[in-house]
């Protein structure tokens, strides 16, 4: 990977007031390069949306740093974002809520250009280009968001982020609110944009199949931490962390064979009161006594990194697969 466009180092995010502090994100290291899609997967409550929000400066950090193109991404609260952060943009889950219903699509998109110092006229011209780029007719500029379907609205939201000339996009469940065929269209669009404009993209999704389809690398999160990260193909073909294994086995396959997906018993524990040692050990099929005590760190094993000393230990042993 070349110089990363976005880098998170030791990022922790806390929610709640003094007494009731919940650590939603706990020491996450993570980087995205240009032209790369990194998928972020995990069950609800694992901190993937928190990570996405922290990455664009929407959450204050309890510790660690987020760096975009070499400069710090600071938490902004209600203040205006500094110009150097214009290249870091977010696509939200619900295109019904993220677009102002009282302004035309053209005006919505032109804002991005005007905030960068362009004129209204330049903005509207750029809006027409961008609408075409995301697969909508240029005439859409004169319509209002409610005149469009969910998939079309998500295209509009994407066109609006593109107006700022971004080098990195963070997309938080960008397709989960859409219909099956619209999901495929938006997933394809995002991956084309990454190739064409050399963008970095962080794709947060609970739909593992879509991440598998478009992401170059995948990071699997559990209870505020990354437990496995590596090339999508490698991780999918031979998941090493027992949690990744369980996630992959739980995906129902559209092969008509009538095979029931494998169940992972139990729920994600309360993040306010995380288990000691490895946070996955209460649900883990291969947990050993030591897992209750030893805190796990990411260790490179067999072409990816995992946070599981049971698996990294056996993989490093002569009988295991070769590690590189």
């Amino acid at each position, binding site marked *: 990977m070349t110089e990363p466009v976005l880098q998170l180092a030791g990022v922790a995010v806390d929610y709640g007031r003094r007494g009731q502090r919940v650590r939603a994100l706990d020491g996450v290291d993570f980087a995205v390069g240009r032209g790369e899609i990194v998928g972020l997967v995990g069950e609800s409550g694992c901190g993937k949306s928190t990570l996405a929000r922290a990455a664009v400066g929407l959450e204050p950090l309890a510790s660690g740093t987020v760096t975009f193109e070499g400069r710090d991404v600071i938490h902004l609260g209600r203040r205006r974002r500094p110009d150097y952060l214009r290249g870091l943009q977010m696509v939200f889950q619900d295109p019904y809520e993220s677009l102002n219903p009282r302004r035309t699509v053209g005006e919505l998109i032109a804002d991005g250009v005007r905030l960068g110092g362009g004129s209204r006229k330049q903005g509207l011209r750029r809006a027409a280009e961008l609408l075409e780029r995301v697969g909508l007719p240029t005439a859409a500029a004169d319509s209002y968001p409610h005149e469009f379907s969910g998939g079309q609205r998500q295209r509009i939201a994407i066109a609006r982020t593109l107006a700022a000339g971004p080098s990195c996009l963070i997309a938080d469940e960008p397709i989960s609110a859409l219909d*099956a065929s*619209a999901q495929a269209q938006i997933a*394809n669009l995002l991956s084309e944009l990454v190739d064409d404009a050399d963008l970095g993209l962080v794709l947060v999704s609970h739909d593992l199949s879509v991440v598998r389809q478009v992401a170059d690398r995948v990071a699997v999160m559990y209870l505020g931490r990354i437990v496995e990260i590596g090339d999508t193909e490698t991780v999918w073909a031979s998941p090493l962390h027992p949690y990744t294994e369980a996630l992959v086995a*739980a995906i129902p396959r*559209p*092969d*008509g064979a009538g095979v029931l*997906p494998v*169940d*992972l018993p139990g729920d994600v524990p309360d993040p306010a009161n995380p288990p000691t040692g490895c946070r996955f050990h209460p649900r883990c099929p291969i947990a050993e006594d030591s897992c209750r005590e030893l805190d796990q760190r990411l260790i490179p094993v067999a072409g990816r990194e995992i946070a599981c000393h049971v698996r990294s230990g056996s993989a490093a042993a002569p009988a295991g697969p070769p590690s590189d």
Partner: protein
Amino acid sequence: MGTLLQVDGLSVALPTRSGYHKAVDDLSFAVDAGEVMGIAGESGSGKTMTALSLFGLLPNGARVTGSIRLDGAELLGLTSSQLRAIRGRQIAMVSQDPSTALHPILPIGTQLTEHMRYHLGVTKTEAMTRAAELLRTVRIPDPEQALRSYAGQFSGGMRQRIAIAVALAAEPRLLVADEPTTALDVTVQAGILRLLDRLCRERGMAVIVITHDLGVMSAVARRLYVMYAGRLAEAGPTSELIARPRHPYTRGLLDALPHPEAGGAPLVPIGGSPPSLGRVPAGCPFHPRCRYAQPSCATDRPEPRLIADTHLLACPPDPLRAAPAAEGGQDSPAADGGQDGRAAP
């Protein structure tokens, strides 16, 4: 096992500003006891209206024709008190959104026992014992505590499992599950699919699963009904429809799915979107989005016909008759990107 539900020529017309329009158009199907049947299609294909018509819960002013028979007894035209005796007891529903399916300020125990006491006439104590047992079945930890808790105290996955427990409380013979796992994580989804499968095998309960997720269908449903714009497009054994889809729409739904074995090949979306109520095209409703459409498709209404023992197809040109299996579908003629000009430049 015998036929439990028999639906014949069901049509549902909904009032709109421009008059009545059919949301469900001449649909027929049957469900056997102990069977899981799937209904697939995009939003607006009439799946949910079909489900609601079974319960007499259609929007005000809806016109229903045809016949819905449960164990031979006609459900259409029943009075609301007659329907109350059937809802929950004979047929029950699990809807997509677990946050609205449960009452926010009634304890879970009350919601679970209401059905039992009304339909089964058991005492309060016995109902509570059964309710705890039911929560254990859907794997809610500490059921006794859960009975005294409120919906808001549970996570989305747990709420959906509780909603399923409520639906199962009066031991219905048919469960209608409308996108029961769409909002859930794959791990929770796997648990619920296994639970439904077990209930069918152990209790002989029948299930209609409504979803656009063909992966979910493939896992639990033995038979599949694919609907488009309120009509049947194709129906048959799930394995056959998925391996060799004959309707271009079924094929389109499959190609739009990320395939676990196919690696990073781009998804092939179906161009355009389904027609809205009242704007259903003449002839075959799918023809404007169909890459195989012929002139006759714009004029002739396709009627479902049997192409194999249990395989129904509503596509007279049948362009996929000799097509290869869907496994290689990613590089099919779809490569032109569809009909709507949305292909990448």
